[in-house]
């Protein structure tokens, strides 16, 4: 992927497909590191599936619902000397508390670090495509932060869909302004 924000879009699509009603996307940056954490309350994965999700050769042949997304993210993290970790609890193991957490750590100063890119576009694309699920986004760097919570917007909008063009534009402008001020 050319931008890390495209990996975020790709991985978060998995969360939505897993039936998550809420997906949280955290980016925590310092001078040296970027840590990306995606937490969903979807159906989760069994231990068997979890063991195989970062292996493109094994997974693509057996579980078509997985594929190249996580292997790519793992490669991009590891090529900076970072790492990828995934924890998951399948709905069959715990009906009330299930979901998946993907955490990728990058060393930002490594020459092979994939730039974050247009993360605002990733957030608006996710909301455009999945207006009925909630997203919480927070990007922190040092003491500053940019955040967006679709639950707050939904409370204002009532039954006006989140993917109404004017709403998507508002979200885009809101995030862009937050980045300018941060």
């Amino acid at each position, binding site marked *: *992927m*050319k931008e890390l924000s*495209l990996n975020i*879009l*790709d991985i978060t*699509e998995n969360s939505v*497909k897993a039936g998550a009603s809420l997906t949280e996307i955290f980016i925590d940056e310092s001078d040296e590191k970027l840590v990306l954490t995606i937490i969903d309350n979807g159906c989760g994965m069994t231990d068997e599936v979890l063991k195989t999700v970062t292996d493109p050769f094994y997974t693509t042949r057996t579980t078509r619902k997985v*594929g*190249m*997304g996580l292997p*790519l993210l793992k490669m991009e993290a590891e090529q900076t000397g970072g790492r990828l970790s995934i924890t998951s609890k399948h709905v069959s193991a715990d009906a009330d508390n299930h979901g998946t957490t993907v955490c990728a750590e990058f060393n930002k100063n490594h020459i092979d670090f994939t730039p974050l890119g*247009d993360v605002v*576009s*990733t957030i*608006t*694309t996710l909301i*455009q*495509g999945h207006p009925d699920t909630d997203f919480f986004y927070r990007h922190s760097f040092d003491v500053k932060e940019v955040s967006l919570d679709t639950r*707050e*917007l939904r409370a*204002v*909008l*009532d*039954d*006006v*869909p989140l993917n*109404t*063009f*004017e*709403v*998507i534009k*508002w979200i885009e*402008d*809101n995030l862009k*302004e937050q980045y300018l*001020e941060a």
Partner: protein
Amino acid sequence: MKSLAELQAIKEKMKNKVVLREGTGDYRVVVGMATCGIAAGARPVLNTLVEEVNNSGLADKITVSQTGCIGICQYEPVVEVFEAGKEKVTYVKMDADKAKRVVEEHLKGGKVVAEYTISAQKV
């Protein structure tokens, strides 16, 4: 700053339109947004389609949505156009500029942009 008050104003404005918008679509435009599509550049294609459809005032007639892997990864980004009673049109190897032309000529003008379709590709 884009405030929640502004969002509230959007809501008031849109409230009456919502009912009208559902199920009246003449065209359904679908963009493949799996790993293959995203890596090939589907995000700007989708965003351009959404933007251009709205700028052309066609939002009531056209829905733009996302789907997973369509199965022809080597041709991504792929855009499919569905119209009631007609055969599906599959546009391949799309980019933002091509998407603009598809909105202008196909969705607005009713004429398929043949050179971007999968059947125009050399095998």
